[in-house]
């Protein structure tokens, strides 16, 4: 992703929050974004509102005309209005949760899943390295032409809002040293033992906390803002006192809690990984390794700088090694060698001979690299690279392999000519079809063709009178929707590359229709990979399509791939018209939450793969964007209901009858858990979970199948919690509060 695009994306998020009247803490952003955001705030402060008398008069007039039935409705205006009234036009959002139970053996009975039903062609599984620089270049020229409309970064950012969750690992670590706690919490991760970066880490003695660029939402302070004039103006947001003017990583002595004290600060901020004495800080384009054996004076041992064209996709810590996945845009003029990063100013490049590519040409605009880095020296010990398309990559790491996905879809221009000729012959005049045919044969980029088609189409529409224009537009859109629905599994795909941890070699590639939501949509079990994808969501193709598509296009599939990434089984069309909000695979079961507007909860029993069937249905409002297994039969969902954060406890012991045992609605519109599972904490011993909100940190008990708020810790913005022994540390920007987990009383507090 280009720097500008990245900035634009970040800015879009800030802007939406500003426009929603939220008070955004700008101190964490680079100065250019801050400046723009301040300007945006200023603009919103001078928003105009329609005059009240105009508003009321127009309303009266419309109502009067409606009552006299002057608008000539065939069906009766009120009648129609009532029919759509219960739909979410007015934000009456509710949810669908689909729990798919891939019960015993269901996943593994491939024979009966009839893979031949898969209509899409699997992108080739053959895999080669390039043999010459010319071959590499030629491949890229062809492949980049395929890739030019396929960036999906925006979709991904949306998806990030809906991250599911992970198994908590908290085996008691019994260290011989008396000073160490018996229980030390770890970051909530997907795969036990595979650590994931986060803004808080602890080794039992110290807490490392980085005031990271994760977005913090402060409540709009309406009561404190200047009085508005007849509600016409939103007053400019107040400055919130910045907790830390410079973002830093704090090292805090944490155990025993009475000894709570700030040891030192590191001048960088970002996600952290901790391995023995080495603290690794992922700070934008830089990765720094700090020796923290003396917490009062951390020493920087190494520094990695990513090249400007390289960005971090993901990192993990597993068995003494750090795994880093990067993505580097391809330089078409000088594709090789690919410059990835420098370590202590020494460059690390990758030559064409080291790059894998599929034997057929798929859309490509990026090189992905998997690096194995020694935490002590920062040195790259092993690496491998392969090509793919940027924008929407999900990385999932099991104990055996790293899976990297990239999504791509067909440009509308590749199927519009066929569509026009087959399905819309009567809607388009001959000259338009002729022009489109000519366009097809031109040697210009697909994007340019799309733009040109758009111009032609608009020219045609503008030549029509309003009545015809509306008719043609509507009809075109309707038929395009049908066409899209028919072909959606061919139009949007995700490539999957499997890199074995042993030797860091590309083991296999494959592809599935649709795109995965996030890392939890992938899971390896007994050598098989399961992927849950959403197919045909209008966001993907509809947006590139010139005519808005209907919103009822999407479906959700689950694919099971063997060790060579061949599809062996699938379940299709789950949650039609919806998209996946969270996924979680636990051994031979799978849970899927889909959501759009209406709210049936389906439970599918797939224990007989030949006859998967709907076993139960439950309607619940809201959705879960994050699923936490509590016990074998119980799952906790964190999500939203209406505009508020919600926790639901599901009983899935009987697939015929999944139940919502309890729910708790927080007085919160946001929790970081909605964005990252790493913000969540489960303490099984005390049967509580923690989630940070924008007003407070919440500790909720799930004992006896009830959800009960134990404690809300207000104060400076709360980000995370950890436990050491039976103490819960609530960590916020500039403040740690320690609670006793038995009585929930405050033991100690530190401002830093």
């Amino acid at each position, binding site marked *: 992703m280009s720097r*500008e695009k990245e*900035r*634009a*994306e970040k*800015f*879009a998020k800030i*802007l939406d929050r500003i*426009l*929603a009247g939220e008070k955004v803490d700008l101190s964490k952003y680079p100065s250019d974004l801050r400046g*723009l955001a301040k*300007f*945006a705030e*200023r*603009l919103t*402060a*001078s*928003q*105009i*509102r*329609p*005059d009240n008398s*105009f508003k009321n008069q*127009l*309303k009266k007039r*419309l109502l009067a005309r*409606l009552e006299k*039935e002057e*608008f000539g*409705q*065939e069906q*009766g*205006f*009120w009648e*129609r*209005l*009532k029919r*759509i*009234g219960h*739909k979410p*036009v*007015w934000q009456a959002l509710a949810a669908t949760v689909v729990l798919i139970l891939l019960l015993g053996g269901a996943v593994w009975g491939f024979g009966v899943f009839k893979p031949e039903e898969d209509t899409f062609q699997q992108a080739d599984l053959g895999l080669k390295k390039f043999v010459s620089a010319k071959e590499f270049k030629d491949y890229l020229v062809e492949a980049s032409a395929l890739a030019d*409309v396929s*960036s999906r*970064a*925006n979709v991904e950012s949306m998806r990030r809002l809906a991250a599911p969750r992970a198994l908590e690992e908290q085996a008691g670590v019994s260290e011989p040293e008396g000073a160490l706690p018996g229980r030390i919490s770890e970051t909530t991760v997907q795969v036990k033992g595979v650590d994931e970066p986060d803004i808080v880490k602890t080794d039992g003695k110290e807490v490392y906390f980085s005031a990271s660029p994760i977005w913090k939402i402060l409540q709009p302070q309406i009561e404190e803002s200047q009085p508005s004039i*007849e509600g*016409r*103006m939103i007053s400019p947001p107040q400055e919130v006192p910045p907790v830390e003017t410079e973002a830093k990583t704090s090292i805090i002595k944490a155990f025993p809690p009475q000894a709570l004290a700030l040891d030192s600060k590191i001048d960088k901020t970002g996600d952290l990984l901790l391995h023995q004495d080495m603290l690794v800080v992922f700070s934008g384009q830089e990765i720094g390794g700090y020796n923290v054996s003396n917490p009062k004076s951390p020493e920087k041992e190494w520094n990695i700088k990513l090249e400007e064209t390289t960005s971090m996709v993901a990192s993990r810590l597993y068995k003494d090694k750090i795994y880093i996945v990067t993505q580097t845009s391809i330089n078409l003029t000088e594709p090789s060698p690919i410059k990835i990063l420098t370590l202590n100013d020494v460059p690390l490049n990758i030559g064409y001979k080291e790059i894998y590519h599929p034997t057929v040409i798929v859309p490509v605009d990026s090189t992905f690299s998997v690096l194995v880095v020694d935490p002590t020296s920062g040195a790259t010990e092993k690496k491998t690279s392969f090509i793919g398309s940027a924008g929407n990559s999900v990385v999932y790491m099991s104990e055996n392999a790293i899976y990297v996905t990239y999504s791509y879809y067909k440009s509308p221009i590749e199927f519009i000519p066929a569509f026009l000729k087959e399905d819309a012959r009567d809607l388009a005049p001959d000259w338009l079809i002729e022009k489109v045919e000519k366009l097809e044969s031109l040697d210009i980029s697909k994007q340019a063709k799309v733009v040109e088609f758009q111009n032609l189409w608009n020219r045609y529409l503008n030549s029509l009178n*309003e009545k015809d224009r*509306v008719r043609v537009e*509507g009809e075109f859109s*309707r038929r395009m*929707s049908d066409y899209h629905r028919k072909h959606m599994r061919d139009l949007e795909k995700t490539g999957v590359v499997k890199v074995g941890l042993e030797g860091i070699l590309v083991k296999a590639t494959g592809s599935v229709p649709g795109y995965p939501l996030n890392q939890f949509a992938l899971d390896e079990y007994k050598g098989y990979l399961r992927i849950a994808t959403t197919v045909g969501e209008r*966001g993907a193709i509809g*947006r590139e399509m010139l*005519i*808005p598509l*209907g*919103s*009822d296009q999407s479906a959700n599939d689950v694919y099971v791939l063997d060790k060579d990434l061949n599809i062996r089984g699938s379940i299709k069309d789950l949650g039609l018209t919806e998209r996946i909000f969270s996924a979680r695979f636990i051994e031979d079961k799978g849970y899927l939450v889909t959501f759009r507007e209406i709210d049936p909860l389906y439970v599918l029993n797939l224990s007989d793969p030949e006859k998967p069937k709907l076993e139960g249905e439950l309607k619940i409002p809201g959705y879960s964007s994050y699923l936490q297994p509590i016990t074998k039969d119980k799952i906790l969902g964190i999500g939203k209901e209406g505009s508020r954060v919600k926790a639901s406890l599901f009983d899935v012991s009987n697939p015929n009858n999944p139940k919502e045992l309890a729910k708790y609605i927080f007085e919160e519109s946001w929790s970081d858990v909605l964005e990252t599972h790493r913000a969540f904490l489960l303490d099984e011993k005390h049967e509580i979970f923690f989630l940070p909100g924008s007003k407070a940190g919440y500790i909720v008990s799930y004992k006896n199948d009830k959800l009960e708020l134990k404690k809300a810790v207000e104060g400076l913005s709360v980000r995370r919690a950890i436990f050491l022994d039976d103490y819960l540390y609530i960590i916020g920007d500039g403040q740690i509060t320690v609670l006793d987990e038995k009585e929930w009383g405050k033991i100690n507090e530190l401002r830093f």
Partner: protein
Amino acid sequence: MKLREEPDKSLGKAKKLFAELYETNLTKVYRYIYYRVGDVTVAEDLTSAVFEKAFTKFDSYRSDKASFSTWLFSITRHTVIDHYRKARHVSAIALNPHSSGGSGIDEAVKWEELQKLLFCLSQLSELEQEIISLKFGSGLPNREIAELKQLSESNVGTILYRAIRKLRDTFLEGEKNE
């Protein structure tokens, strides 16, 4: 007509829905139009036209095809386009603070700020103007703007980002020269 057969209670519910529909969308539509035409009187006229059209065409609205606001905004956009077609001789944004002082923002400072903004807005390209209007005028999410403008969402993001940068630069430049 069916209307007559409906019990009053049910009609009352429909009316409530109508009121909600009207309240949620009126300001958004009005602001967008105002940003596009820069004149309160014209904005009021066009806003009325949009709602009248919307209810006349309500039969053709398919809730399963698009959200109501997307549908409404495509009517709004066409209404503004038609307005300019009919009045080609009128410059894109008719700045006329005097004709509208009373009915818009009361406070003089804010009013001036808004006028400055409109002037700076008129310096941007047509596409940029429209996207800014949809964003700041109506607060639409980029996804919906993308749908209306038939662009990709990331395109909208980038255009918006660039446009606001330009807008800020001209805006602050103007302030410096004051």
